C-alpha cells in the first residue's frame, strides 16, 4: 500500500496517533514521512542507515581481505566460487592451477577439500611432531584477527550492533599494529 501522507512511496510503518480530545487513529506511512511525523521514528531511521553503512563496510572489508595493502589476489569474493580464503582472497581454483596457497590461513579456509590433496601427497592429513613452537607477535595478531572477524560475523547475525562496533575498532587496531610490524615501523 501507498503512504497515506505523501501517496508516493510504499508504506512501511504503521503509527498510532493519540491526540487530546480525539479518538486515537492509525496512519500507514513511508519511512521518510514517518520520520517527519515521529521523533522516535526519525531516530530509528538514522540508526538504521548508520548500521547499513557499517554493515556494508564490514562485509566489503572481509571480502577484500587484509592482504590488500601487500598485494592481494582476488578482489571480491561474493560472485566467485564460494571457496575463497577470507584472509587473502585466494580462490580455490587458483590453488588447483598452481598448487600454491595464498597465505597460512588458506589451510583452514580450504581444509575440507585440501585434505584430499594432503592424503594424496603424504598419505596423512595431520602433523605429528614434537617441535616446540613459539608464535611471533605477528602470528598471535593473525589469530586474534581471525577470531575477531568470526565473532563480528556472529554479532551481526544476532544484530548485536554494539558488540559489532567494538569488534570493528578492535579489528582496525589489530590491523594497524600488524602493518607496523610488517613494515618495520614499530
Amino acid at each position, binding site marked *: 500500500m501507498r503512504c497515506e501522507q505523501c501517496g508516493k512511496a510504499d508504506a512501511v510503518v504503521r503509527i498510532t496517533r493519540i491526540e487530546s480530545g480525539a479518538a486515537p487513529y492509525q496512519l500507514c506511512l513511508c519511512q521518510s514521512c514517518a520520520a517527519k511525523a515521529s521523533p522516535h521514528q526519525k531516530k530509528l531511521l538514522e540508526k538504521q542507515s548508520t548500521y547499513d553503512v557499517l554493515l556494508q563496510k564490514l562485509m566489503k572489508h572481509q571480502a577484500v581481505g587484509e592482504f590488500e595493502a601487500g598485494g592481494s589476489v582476488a578482489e571480491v569474493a561474493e560472485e566467485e566460487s564460494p571457496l575463497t580464503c577470507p584472509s587473502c582472497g585466494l580462490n580455490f581454483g587458483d590453488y588447483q592451477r598452481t598448487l600454491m596457497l595464498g597465505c597460512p590461513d588458506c589451510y583452514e579456509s580450504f581444509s575440507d577439500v585440501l585434505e584430499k590433496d594432503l592424503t594424496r601427497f603424504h598419505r596423512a592429513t595431520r*602433523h605429528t611432531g614434537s617441535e616446540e613452537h613459539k608464535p611471533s607477535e605477528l602470528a598471535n595478531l593473525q589469530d586474534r584477527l581471525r577470531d575477531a572477524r568470526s565473532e563480528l560475523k556472529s554479532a551481526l547475525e544476532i544484530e548485536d550492533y554494539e558488540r559489532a562496533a567494538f569488534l570493528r575498532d578492535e579489528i582496525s587496531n589489530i590491523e594497524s599494529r600488524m602493518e607496523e610490524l610488517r613494515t618495520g615501523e614499530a
Partner: protein
Amino acid sequence: MDAKLFDRTDSWLKGGAGDTGHIAVSSRARLARNLGGFPFAPHAKPPALENVEKYIAEGIGRCERLGAFERLELAKLSGDERAYLRESRLISREMEQGGEHRVAWVSPEESTSILVNEEDHLRLQVVRTGLGIRDALEALKEIDAALADVVGYAWSERYGYLTACPTNVGTGFRASVMLHLPGLRQLKEIESGLQGIGHHGLTVRGFYGENSEFTGDFYQISNEITLGRTVDEIMDTLMLVVNRLVEKESEARLELFRHHESSVADAIWRSYGTLSFARRIGSSEAMRLLSMIRLGIDKGWFGDLSHAALNRLVLEVQPAHLERRRGREGKFDSRDEARAAFLRERVQAANGHHKDAAS
C-alpha cells in the same frame, strides 16, 4: 659481488667422507618455513615480498647466532654468479632465476644458507660431504631454533609448519643423499635396486635435481612425504633405504671386478686416457668419464686421487665454475677446451700408480 665468496665456496667438500665415502657423495638437509601474518611468496606482490625480506633481515640482524652470515641480493648478481652458487649448492635452481626481493644468507663456511622469498619465505639448508646427513640435520635444527626466536613461523596444530605448497607442509623437512652407483648400473640392477623406494615415501632424482638424468651414475635419494611423520621417522626411513643401497652397490662392485674385471678395467683406463689427452670435453662427457675414474679409485689405481678430490673435480667441471676459471686464465676459446685442459692437468698429476693396474 664479493669475489672472496667464490674463492671460499664449496668448503663443504672438504673433510673425510667416512667409510661410505666411495658411494655416498654428499648430503643435504633443508627446512621450509614461512612467517605468520604475511601472504605466501608465490601469490604475493613485490611490496609484500619486500616487507617479508625486511622483516627477516631485521630478525637475522638481532640474532647473534646468525651474525656472521653474508647477505646476497640475487637481483644484483649476474647470471653466471647465480649459476655458480647453484652449482655450489648454496642456492636452489628456483633461486638461480633471480627476482626482486630474493636474498641468500650464506654462512662463513659456505655449507649453510638461508634463502628468502623462494617458494617459501624461508628455506634453510645445510650441505655436508659423504653420508653426513645427521650432522647436517643437527646444524639445521640450530639455525631453525635461532630464526624461530626472531621471526616466528606460520604454524598450526593440525598441519604443523605451513608452506606455500602443501607438498611440503608438516615438518617442512627434506633430506637428500647423493649416491654414486656405477656398479648397480653396469650390472643392470639399478632398477631393481631402486624399486619400491616410492613405497617408503622417498624419491630418486639425478645429479641436477628434479627432472634431470642420472648423469655420471649419480642418484639423489630424498623424502617426498613431509606430513604425518616426525623428522626422526623421515630420517630413519631414508637411512634405512640409503644404507641398503650402499650395501647393494658394494656387492655390485665386488661382483663387477670379480666377473668382469677385464672389461671394467678397460673402460676405466680408456676414461683415464681420454681425460689425460683429449682437447675438448663437454660437461656430461666429463661426468661419465669421472664416474669411471671414481670407480677405479676403489681399486687404488689412482693413488693421489681421493674420493673427496674427485667430488671436487666433478663440481669444478660444471659450466659456471669452469667459466669463472676460464675468465681468470683468459686463454681458452671455448669452455670445452678449458674443461679438457683443466682435467688433463688434474688427472695426469693425480696418477702415480697406473703401472700397478696392469699387474
